[in-house]
């Protein structure tokens, strides 16, 4: 799907990003974070970092399902944010997301915070 088509623009609206301040953003994926939505997520992170919002919290409260592609996208986001001098934290994970993180031992790299506020704390 090419950027700037109507479909693309519609998709971009489906993963809102809040700018908390000049350097901090909260990304809100919803539904499934998998092969279908991973690219959109990566695009959102890139756009945030591009606009100097390199401190990123990913609010996973509305994510009902994540697979290894979704996990890969989170990891890619973490690397992008850190390369820009920032960080990426995740918040409000479901039992299913926790399962994926723990099976892959990524819960040590992507430490889950209970709430977005907890994640923002000390960023």
């Amino acid at each position, binding site marked *: 799907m090419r950027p700037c088509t109507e479909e693309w623009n519609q998709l971009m609206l489906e993963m809102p990003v809040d700018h908390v301040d000049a350097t901090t953003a909260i990304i809100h994926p919803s539904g499934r974070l998998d092969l279908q939505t991973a690219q959109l997520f990566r695009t959102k992170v890139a756009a945030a970092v591009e606009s100097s919002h390199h401190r990123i919290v990913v609010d996973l409260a509305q994510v009902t399902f994540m*697979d290894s592609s979704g996990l890969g996208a989170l990891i890619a986001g973490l690397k992008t944010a850190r390369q820009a001098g920032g960080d990426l934290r995740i918040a409000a994970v479901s039992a299913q997301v926790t399962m994926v993180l723990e*099976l*892959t031992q990524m819960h040590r790299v992507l430490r889950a915070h209970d709430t977005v506020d907890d994640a923002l704390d000390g960023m």
Partner: protein
Amino acid sequence: MTPPSGERWDADVTALDRMHAVLEQTWRAHPQVPELDRTALTLSLAELVANVAEHSGATSLWFGVEVTTDALIAVTQDDGVPTPHRFRSALVTEDPYAEDGRGMALARHLAQLSYDRVEECNRWQVVRPISSS
């Protein structure tokens, strides 16, 4: 060729929507299946189907799932390239910042997978025993 059993879908990302919908229907029809087993089977199958959509070059994917008293049994078949027997996939990757290479290991951890090449098709059987209460 004997047509594979199950529903036929396009072997692209839309197959994921269809797979999740069929599984949701299945859980509604079988409310006794424990949450853990639903989650495990769903994730295992999602990894397999994503793999087919992304890497196999397949046009078609056939999908079927059934619930028995002891197990959840799914079969997927696709007309893509032969799936390599040795997967470089691990639950815990050497480089923790690796963005891929975990999917098949996850699938195999969560269910019993068996693979066959049948009449130019890849056929996967995925079995998740139902946890006893």
